[in-house]
């Protein structure tokens, strides 16, 4: 998968570089077995 690929319903969600407020990496793959609800914010207001 290249950085330009777009995924759709039914596709596996790969890990991307996400960090929390402490700079700790968050990986989707660490949460397999539990459903996720992802909310992509526009910006912090």
């Amino acid at each position: 998968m290249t950085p330009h690929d777009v995924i759709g319903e039914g596709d596996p969600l790969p890990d991307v570089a996400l960090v929390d407020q402490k700079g700790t990496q968050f990986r989707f793959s660490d949460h397999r077995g539990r459903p996720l609800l992802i909310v992509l914010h526009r910006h912090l207001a």
Partner: protein
Amino acid sequence: MIAVRDHLDQLGDVLPIVVTFTDDVSRLGAYRNHLDIGFPVLADVDRALYRLLGAGRGSIRRVWSPGTIAMYARLLRHGRRLRPPTEDTRQLGADAVVDRDGRLHRLWLPASPDARPDIVELIEAMAELD
């Protein structure tokens, strides 16, 4: 976000994740505390997840539609303190449900900020996983 926080008991064992693209990760904790949410708030600094899910940038007309302005007015009326954004205000958001196997189950790509799915739609999508 507040709707998700207030309906967690109806969302089963889902883990909600809020993602933004700020490059100042120190703001994430403050935002989490401000909204009193216990789930992760994460930064996607290079917007890789936004691109992956197809969440693009909207036109100024769409982003600042009458519906968007009304949405912010509602938030202010309900006591939300809003700060002027310092990031790209034309970036659109998205909502996604990922199943237990890590596959994208549902994806919403709203054309304007006020067109996000309501909590009922999210609860129904989560129920489809059972």
